[in-house]
């Protein structure tokens, strides 16, 4: 990547004997919205803190605009952070909070006034300039925290679950606002969240992390439609995942033997005898009352789950696994307790390589 603004090479972070980030390689392009996505404790915050300079990498290099920053203090790096708990200065007004960075850099008073006012307008907080942080709602604090960082015109803005404390409706609204702001300003955002929906909505690219390992770095569509690991398939959206072994290959169509029975999937890069995983999204899973060629997955309709825009149907397979399929309306062709055969179009399923622990 020639326009990369942040580069992590072989970054490892240990806390004592606990390896929290394992050999992380990551390039973030100028102006990109990159999300670090993963479950709690996977090392997202630690990664962000290493870029900001609050934690030192145990191994590897971190570059901002091609320049190594390991030896620079946080206040010497041209990145700014929006903290998860906002971290607004309680003894300062909204205005002074936003002006803080500029005051430190001894920007002339008139310019500070102008830039802070512009920021206040941008985050729609003008009427609150004189208030103290404890007189603001969560959403308002969030806006101030973002304005306080952006007013410094950083090359990169680091955001650690910035919407985590907001209620669902406000969160959705702020997601869109933030994304628009980022596009308008053209600033690189590195955004941490554990919410896959948020990641899919906002990001140009998503880096899915798990146990300190970068599992997949791709566009939201790629991540959703072509998960590369079993973890990514399970973590992003809802998916039915089978573990099995290739027993036959005709052209690119694999027949896979699993504990639940045989199934089919397209997999050009797989060989007979290879162990693998198969992921099928609920929207693509089908049931039939008669057997289907290539599939020997049998089960019983368990129940229907109404979810507003879709209705899910749960099926108990004979091997003990539960699978789900979703339709826009309740599937009236089957009833609870009915015996069904589960299948899908092989091209709709995703074939996933089985990796040894730790390798990607």
């Amino acid at each position: 990547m020639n326009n990369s603004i942040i580069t992590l090479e072989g970054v490892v972070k240990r806390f004592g004997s606990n390896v929290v980030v394992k050999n992380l390689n990551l390039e973030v392009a100028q102006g990109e919205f990159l999300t670090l996505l993963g479950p709690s404790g996977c090392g997202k915050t630690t990664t962000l803190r290493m870029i900001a300079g609050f934690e030192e990498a145990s191994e590897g290099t971190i570059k901002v605009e091609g320049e190594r920053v390991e030896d620079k203090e946080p206040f010497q790096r041209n990145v700014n952070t929006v903290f998860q708990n906002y971290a607004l200065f309680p003894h300062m007004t909204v205005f002074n909070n936003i002006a803080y960075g500029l005051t430190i850099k001894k920007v002339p008073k008139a310019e500070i006034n102008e830039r802070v006012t512009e920021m206040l307008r941008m985050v729609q907080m003008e009427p609150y300039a004189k208030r103290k942080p404890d007189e603001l709602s969560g959403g308002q604090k969030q806006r101030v925290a973002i304005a306080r960082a952006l007013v410094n015109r950083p090359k990169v803005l680091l955001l650690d679950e910035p919407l985590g404390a907001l209620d669902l409706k406000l969160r959705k609204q702020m997601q869109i606002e933030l994304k628009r702001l980022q596009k308008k300003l053209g600033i690189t955002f590195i955004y941490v969240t554990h919410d896959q929906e948020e990641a899919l909505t906002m990001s140009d690219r998503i880096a899915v992390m798990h146990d300190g390992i970068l599992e997949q770095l791709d566009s939201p569509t790629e991540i959703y439609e072509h998960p590369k690991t079993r973890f990514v398939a399970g973590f992003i959206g809802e998916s039915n995942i089978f573990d099995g072994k290739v027993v036959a290959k005709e052209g690119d169509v694999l027949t896979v033997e699993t504990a639940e029975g045989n199934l089919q999937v397209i997999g050009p890069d797989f060989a007979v005898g290879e162990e693998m995983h198969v992921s099928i999204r609920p929207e693509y899973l089908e049931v039939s009352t008669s057997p289907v060629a290539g599939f020997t997955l049998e089960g019983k309709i368990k129940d229907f789950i109404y979810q507003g825009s879709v209705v899910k149907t749960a099926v108990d397979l004979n091997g003990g696994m539960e699978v789900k399929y979703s339709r826009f309306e309740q599937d009236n062709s089957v009833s609870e307790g009915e015996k069904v055969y589960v299948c899908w179009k092989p091209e709709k399923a995703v074939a996933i390589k089985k990796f040894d622990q730790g390798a990607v």
Partner: protein
Amino acid sequence: MSSASQAMPKKKNLLPKMAMAGPVSLWMILFVTIPLMYIIFISFMSRGVFGDVLYKPTTESYTTILDPTYFKVIVKSLQAAGITTLLCILIGYPFAYIIARKPKDVAAKMITLLMIPFWTNSLMRLNAWLLLFQTSGPVNNFLVNFGFVDKPIGFIYTDELVMIGLITNMLPFAVLPLYSTIEKLEKSLLEASADLGADAKTTFMKVTLPITFPGIFSAIILVFIPSLGIYTVTDMLGGGKVMYIGNIIKNQFGAIRNWPLGAALSVLLIVITMLLIFIYTRFAKIEDMEVV
């Protein structure tokens, strides 16, 4: 109708509150308000020939306070208390900061260590000091034997030793409120400051210090007021030669038996105390009072 139903619960809630406040109020009236009133009353009375209180109103005691002999002592006491407070905060702040940044269990142990001398009997502690610093005590023996000085230094019964005694005595009162506010200071605020370009010194001046100011003020009150009135330290380490306002009050009520003058000096101390607390409540929020 609605207003009546609103008033009802209020009335109901008042009774238990009064029941609880009652005994406390009674206690306060009996043991604080009445004695205080009595002190103020006596301070305006005259002294009898035999050291008794004559119930003849006069402001004589207050004019005596302004007499240079007494006034000098008052100023000297204020000075000593001020220096004690300043030094306790200068020493106590970094101390409290270090403790507050330790893990909780280590911090608890350090606080306990700090409190141990405070829990030991103060007369015993002060006597130990005298033994340590007297002319033939271990400190002087050490200094003379190792050639640091030619002859023993007269540490005891000096203003300096009194000052050191006051500081060590008062230090826990400074460290505790400082610790409790510094401990509440979120680390992310310091990181946010660094993130926005401030170096460690700027962060301290612009974030740490202003946010922990209520703790500093509590420490000032908790150290300044007792150091102003204390007489055990000054009596013992000063050997009666070093006179502070506390010693004079004690002597007026004791050996000298001039109760009106002692009362007037006490009133002066109370006024200074109230003034400080008034300033405190103006500058700090009421919730922070819990520290005091």
